[in-house]
């Protein structure tokens, strides 16, 4: 099996829920199966597991946000003006 870098493996763990749960249940076996070097496998033994889940959730939320259709510049401008008006009326 060809070697992959730790960055590539982290990108997979951040974006692939199945890969992440497999890794969290047995980090060493999952990392070895993915083709990481012994040095990288060693560094993953002490990975911040809660941080991994939190980072992955945060990235998933960002990706979902990116997929949402973006309003046009004019629509955003109007939304801003409406929100400002609403705030002023509420004061």
């Amino acid at each position, binding site marked *: 099996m060809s070697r992959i870098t730790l*960055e590539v493996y982290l990108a997979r763990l951040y974006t692939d829920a199945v890969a992440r749960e497999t890794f969290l249940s047995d980090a060493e076996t999952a990392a070895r199966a993915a083709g990481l070097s012994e040095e990288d496998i060693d560094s993953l033994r002490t990975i911040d597991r809660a941080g991994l889940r939190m980072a992955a959730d945060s990235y998933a939320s960002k990706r979902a946000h990116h997929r949402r259709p973006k309003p046009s510049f004019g629509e955003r401008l109007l939304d801003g003006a409406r929100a400002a008006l609403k705030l002023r009326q509420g004061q």
Partner: protein
Amino acid sequence: MVKSKTGLDRVGIGWRGELAAGIFTHLDQIDLLEIIADAYFKSDARALRPLQTLAAQVPITLHGVSMGLAGSEAVELWRMDNMARLVNTLQPESWSEHLAFVRAGGIEIGHLAAPPRTDLNICAAIANIERVSEIVGQRPLMENIATLIDPPGSRWDEPGWTAQIVNACGEGLLLDLHNLYDNALNFGDKPEKLLMRFPLHRVREVHLSGGKWIDEPSISKEQPSTRQRLLDDHVHDVPGDVFGLLELLAQHVAQPLDVIIERDGLYPDFDHLVTQMDAARTALARGRASTAMMKAAA
């Protein structure tokens, strides 16, 4: 390019369409605007004209969010070409990107991720920054990011890794003080101590934003977590402690600082954002005054 309206330090805000009305009616209180470059990469010359008009009224900086210059893979040419075209068209005072990777092995993470801080990664980041500087024709300011995970495989701490990259490239640092604050609190550092370990002589620009505390998940039933971590979400006010860090920074550097308030949602009345900009000016002034007092006493 228009001249700054203030003296040494300048304070501005990130340009967002939702804030446009407020920005236009408060231009006299805004020293500079930061524009998210990626939002205009697909814009043709005609669509960029309003931004050119804006740039004629207030100094602008461009901010990239998707290049991944601190990734170990080479950044694709088309991404750098996009920035070069925008810089050429809008002639900003500066442009910036993040010390982050955003993709690897064809996988798009979707946001800024902290790479393992290794010697190999430092070399790759320097190569990426040198190449993009050549293509864009101007060196980027490089920004520290917030991370919810301490990147595994790291041989350097964040300030040391950052210093290695920015010192080697000779470029400026865009220091995001809320990112620094988050990382310090999330990983057991004191924010003030962490700040002082960064290469402060390189700081040219500062980002200020806010965030919220989120629950840390339990890793197992046997080990329920009661801890929380701070998430940098850009939809809350800048905390007082972060203005305190700005004051400390201003106290310890001689060079002028450009400070940008970042707000990406839950937009308050624009007057509220003006008070945040004023708070930044106050922090800067306090920091500068403190230095002046110390010099006078010496």
